């Protein structure tokens, strides 16, 4: 697979105009993300993860170092539109992302702005709504939808640009459990079926479990990078970074610590059940 996002020693700082204090938010981030990868980015508030995400579609550009997406240097101002078209962003609050009174108009906003022909806009809007399972709502008013539905419309709005990368910055922070499930399964489907590269920033560890790769940031640096089953079993390390692990992983970890022979790398409810039930079967077998 080829590299679609590349950051080389990316640094970002800003200066407070009043105090002249310089804050270094990113202190040298280097990473390669491959086309089609689903990457979750974790880190406590202030770790630099949102700042990193904003570099992926040139909302911010590096103070030093370099970021390229789809082979384009994000610091190249002439390519700004090109970058924004290829990298779609979804933010936390769905209400701030709605611009129209009807769902399909909202989704059509970006292609209309790109000056596309009518038929092409129609095709893209229909495809985008189908991809997030919201076709039935095309004529609805966005403000009457649930939080999860609104976020799926926001995702459809991004898809209508037919981007190669979708970046989601805490898209489920304001949603109820059902809304969270809808949004995450939508992202996973886009990644699996349309092979879209996805970068998901989240505080929910159970969401990161479904990613191919997990990156953990701390004080402006990447401190962990691996598949979920390498990252989450490091329960104490995660806690020291101000993060959590899924309850399934923590339960297995604590049982292992109390001396049971259990695989400490379980991530999901089902894996955890099958590990513990095996211990149980062994015990019952031994008792008989």
């Amino acid at each position, binding site marked *: 697979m080829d590299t679609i996002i590349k950051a080389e020693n990316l640094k970002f700082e800003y200066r407070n105009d009043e105090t002249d204090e310089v804050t270094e938010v990113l202190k040298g981030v280097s990473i390669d993300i491959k086309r089609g990868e689903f990457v979750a980015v974790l880190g406590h*508030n202030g770790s630099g993860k949102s700042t990193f995400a904003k570099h992926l579609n040139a909302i911010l550009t590096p103070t030093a170092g370099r970021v390229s997406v789809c082979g384009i240097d994000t610091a190249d101002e002439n390519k700004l539109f090109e970058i924004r078209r290829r990298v779609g962003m979804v933010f936390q609050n769905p209400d701030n992302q709605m611009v129209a009174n009807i769902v399909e108009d909202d989704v059509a906003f970006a292609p209309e702005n790109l000056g596309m022909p009518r038929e092409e806009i129609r095709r893209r809007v229909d495809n985008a709504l189908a991809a997030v399972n919201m076709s039935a709502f095309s004529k609805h008013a966005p403000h009457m939808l649930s939080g999860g539905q609104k976020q799926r419309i926001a995702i459809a709005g991004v898809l209508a640009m037919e981007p190669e990368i979708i970046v989601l910055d805490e898209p489920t922070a304001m949603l109820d459990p059902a809304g969270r499930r809808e949004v995450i399964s939508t992202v996973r489907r886009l990644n699996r079926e349309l092979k879209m590269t996805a970068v998901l920033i989240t505080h929910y560890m159970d969401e990161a479990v479904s990613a191919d790769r997990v990156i953990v940031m701390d004080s402006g640096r990447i401190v962990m990078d691996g598949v979920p089953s390498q990252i989450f079993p490091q329960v104490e390390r995660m806690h020291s970074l101000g993060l959590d692990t899924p*309850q*399934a992983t923590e339960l297995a970890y604590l049982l292992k610590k109390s001396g049971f022979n259990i695989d400490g790398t379980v991530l999901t409810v089902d894996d955890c059940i099958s590990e*513990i039930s095996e211990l*149980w079967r062994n015990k*019952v077998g031994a008792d008989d």
Partner: protein
Amino acid sequence: MIKLRNVSYVYMQGGPFEKTALDNINLEIDRGEFIGIIGHTGSGKSTLIQMLNGLLKPSSGGIEVAGVNLTDKKTNLRDVRFKVGLVMQYPEYQLFEETVFKDIAFGPKNMGLDDDEIKKRVEFAANTVGLAPELLEKSPFDLSGGQMRRAAIAGVLAMEPTVLILDEPTAGLDPAGRDEILYKIKDMHERMNMTVLLVSHSMEDVAKLADRILVMNSGHVEMFDTPERVFKNADRLSEIGLNVPQVTRITDGLRKLGMPLHEGIYTINDAVYCITNALRGEGR
């Protein structure tokens, strides 16, 4: 402490978009209880809590909070708002003063307290939420997101309400920040014998803290019981757009496979304890 009798609330009554947000709610909450409120978006949670400090008036029914009848026209709602502190979602967007101190002092000042008392309360509230004293003279807009959230909560605490209501106080915070704020709230609840109502989308958080859980669904009270009894109903909770903590799903799954675990296990510690006992116990 809180009593609701046949309370209903209808938005845009008589209009084409008429919507019943709350339908004949009856509730009683005792002094000093810690109540978790869960429910899908649109289930009526926010309407309910806005009624408890008089921001919304019920279309019908009666509400009594801290001995005050909110539905009586003669009641001065201003006094009620000092007794019932409401921390709304994303309260940091409501910070507005020049300094953190002034922002936290806004409530007590409006209560007509003298300067010494105000200073005492601001310092106490800031300390309670874990804001360092040197931050008090800063502009609230120079604080980090987590600090702003705490300053906003401190502003409500400084009024020393008898009932504290928080609408998703940890949304958007990282796990460590979330645990810290929840721990502070629990600590306050215990030290000041405050009645606390916490609205949350996180079943894990509610499970950790609440004495009782109020489950709202389509404007009705679906359940109102201890976490153990509420989380026994995993299937029903999932039907109404909610879920149970992961540990509950794990222990439920294990019980179905024959392990002797009781229903409604909802904390990791309890799960470890029960599973360890089962695996080390004398057969079945």
